[in-house]
């Protein structure tokens, strides 16, 4: 029996430094409702979120700004990886919230959470494109 081509694909939702959109995108991908808004993750650490209905493994990753070399590393390893960068979906409240977080912890989170809601339709669209 021939192997099904998509079975070996590993999907990584990735963003820069703070897990904001990637946990939600992974939850949407895994049809895990309500979407998870929290995630404990360090830069560079691959975080396994689950296996989707096609048998593809879904992960989150904080690339820390090094995504070109991260893509090089993953593509030189065995298996097929699809890396979905989420940074471009940051809405203004998320950007402002992240800036406020650098001034004082806790100030920016209400804004970030509001921003996640605002980015939700775009995230759903991107996840749908990834699922195919």
């Amino acid at each position: 029996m021939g192997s099904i081509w998509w079975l070996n694909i590993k999907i990584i939702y990735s963003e820069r430094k703070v897990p904001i959109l990637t946990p939600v995108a992974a939850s949407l991908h895994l049809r895990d409702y309500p979407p998870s808004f929290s995630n404990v993750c360090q830069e560079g650490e691959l975080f396994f979120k689950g296996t989707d209905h096609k048998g593809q493994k879904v992960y989150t990753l904080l690339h820390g700004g090094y995504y070109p070399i991260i893509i090089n590393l993953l593509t030189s390893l065995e298996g097929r990886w699809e890396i979905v960068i989420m940074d471009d979906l940051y809405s203004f409240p998320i950007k402002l919230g992240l800036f406020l977080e650098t001034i004082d912890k806790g100030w920016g989170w209400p804004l970030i959470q509001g921003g996640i809601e605002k980015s939700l339709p775009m995230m759903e669209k991107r996840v749908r494109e990834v699922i195919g």
Partner: protein
Amino acid sequence: MMQIEKVIYHCYGGSHSSVVSAAIHTRLLGRKTPPRRELLQIPYFDETRKEDIGRLHLFGTAPEGIQVYAMGMGGGSKVLKKLLYSTFRDEGVPKESLLLVNTLSQVNLSTRIGGFLSRGLGFVTLGRPLVLMGILSSYPLFVQLVEEVEKRIKGGP
């Protein structure tokens, strides 16, 4: 104690010190300082480009049966190390089975300047002779590093 299965020699660009160390470990190069032409025959030696940073190159299997790799990590070594550990862990290779060896400590000034000229700026005719001079003059240090790694694989300190 967990058996080491894979050794990854890493430097900045993955072009000089990491590939020389991996070549010594896999016996592509001997323990005595080789002639220039032998160095130039090693895969990837003074060949990789900035766009190749992050690629993991399998050099071969060492006599102890472990797989030996070389790679350049650029400025992202902290992130890439975590990613290497977590991707291999995902494939069933625990952290203790993976040995990451930084070869930059063995790099002298001549190799640094030559490497920057050859790989960073593309002045190969100017940079390569400096790289060769630098690598050959510190060759015993690379041999020493590989021997320390081999000792560690055998269960030494």
